[in-house]
């Protein structure tokens, strides 16, 4: 990603404002921007969703394709998450192979679904040891104004939650026929915080991201589990930051989960 010099200059005010207890856009420290979720928007995708988080917009699509299971889990399908930070979303995104940033993002979204057991991989089995579904979740940022982590994770969950399972005959997908829906076992919600000075702010926008020293993400589930942590960037956080992030995340996730 190229540098946005203008933004860097503006970002110097973010911390000053926080010391006066004001976020640049007027939000409280533990407040998300306006969220909206649209589902089932593309016909070629088995599941799809568009998530807007303030001016950040992200699209996710799911394809369920038959494939071979791993030898050590013959009765389980799997998922594969890819994110692309395409130049549509920002004059500072470049075309080309996935950047380090988009690889971290993909992997955090992937693990967030996989390790929280949001998808029952056994439900993706077609014929034990022979054929399973692989759920490809592809995520495209279309407008970037900060916090792609939460927007992407929510879009992925929303797209998976209503994905149709293709009907299979002779090991091949039957066009436009479905055997049911993929229902999620759990809907983990990722909540990302920016550490700016000594402040921890939820759902940073681009300006706040430019000012942050560290990024910290917490995923929480409806059955009261913390299902993921990911700390990023060169700054440090404290035990207390994590504790308070967890509490805020549980509260925020409850609201978002209702919108799914």
């Amino acid at each position, binding site marked *: 990603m190229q540098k946005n010099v203008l933004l860097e200059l503006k970002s110097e005010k973010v911390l000053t404002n926080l010391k006066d207890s004001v976020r640049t856009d007027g939000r409280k420290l533990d407040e998300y921007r306006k969220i909206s979720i649209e589902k089932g*928007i*593309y*016909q*070629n*995708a*088995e599941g*799809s969703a568009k998530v807007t988080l303030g*001016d950040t917009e992200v*699209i996710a*699509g*799911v*394809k369920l*394709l038959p494939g071979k299971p791993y030898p050590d889990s013959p009765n389980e399908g799997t998922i594969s998450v*890819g994110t*692309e930070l*395409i*130049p*549509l*979303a*920002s*004059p500072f995104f470049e*075309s080309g*192979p996935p950047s380090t940033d988009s690889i971290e993002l993909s992997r955090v979204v992937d693990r967030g679904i996989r390790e929280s057991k949001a998808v029952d991989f056994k439900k993706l089995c077609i014929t034990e040891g022979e054929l399973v579904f692989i759920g*490809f979740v*592809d995520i*495209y940022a*279309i*407008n*970037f*104004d900060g916090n792609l982590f939460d927007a992407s994770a929510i879009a992925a969950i929303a797209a998976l939650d209503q994905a149709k399972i293709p009907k299979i005959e002779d090991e091949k997908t039957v*066009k436009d026929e479905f055997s049911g829906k993929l229902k999620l076992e759990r809907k983990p919600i990722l909540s990302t915080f920016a550490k700016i000075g000594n402040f921890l702010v939820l759902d940073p926008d681009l300006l706040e991201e430019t000012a942050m020293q560290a990024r910290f993400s917490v995923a929480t589930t409806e059955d009261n589990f913390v299902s993921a942590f990911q700390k990023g960037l060169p700054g440090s956080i404290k035990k207390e930051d994590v504790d308070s992030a967890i509490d805020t995340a549980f509260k925020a996730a409850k609201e978002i989960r209702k919108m799914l």
Partner: protein
Amino acid sequence: MTKEEKKVYVNKKGLRLDGRKIDELRPLTIKAGVLKNAKGSCYLTWGQNKVLVSVQGPREVLPKHHSDPLKAIVKFNYRMAAFSVPDRKNPKPGRRDIEISKVCGEALEKAIMLEKFPNTQIEVWAQVLDSNAGSRVAVLTAASVALADAGIPMKDLVTAVAVGRAGGKIILDLNKEEEDAPDAVDMPIALMTSAKEIVLLQMDGLFSKTEWDEAYELAAKALEQIKEKQVQALKEQFLQESMETETKEKIKAEVQ
């Protein structure tokens, strides 16, 4: 295959498999100025096709020795979302993506007043989100609107459509089912309609010269309709921008 061959692509009433007439477009909507971070943008739906196009620039070319001291260069990127096709599309651009990017970029170059912006590049990103035959004419039509939305001076809009043959008839705007006809011919064409300049033309199949004439006429008429929709989208966007500015001015006035 025998089943396919028995399909009636145009019935006795002159209606096609999806109920359209021979010279009827699939539903087409165009909206300019949809992306906050792009200099210009356009969201276009055309039947099942859904495409999003952004324009950035003119801006400096990097590395510098790739720039042209006499004019701007155009970088057109046609990309299909992995989930935009029945099977999953590999995210890495393939040979088809590269060829479409090339011919669409070249089609736009003729229309843009490139000489006004020497040493710069204009970047068009055309993302297909859902598809069903005709995505290249969809993105090209949308790109032209996005360029105008970005305020880049153009001689004329570029307007594109596909015509072709299925079941022995020359028809407008083929869908996937028609493209799969045993005798199918598909011909994407783009014009700057004012002077009838052809800026994109591709065709593969077996066409008689008469069929070419017929197809061209069918396309030319449809392009007028499509251009109207492009212009309408730009007008709406212009109106909205003016209103937003006006509202802001008002608010400012009231505050003071």
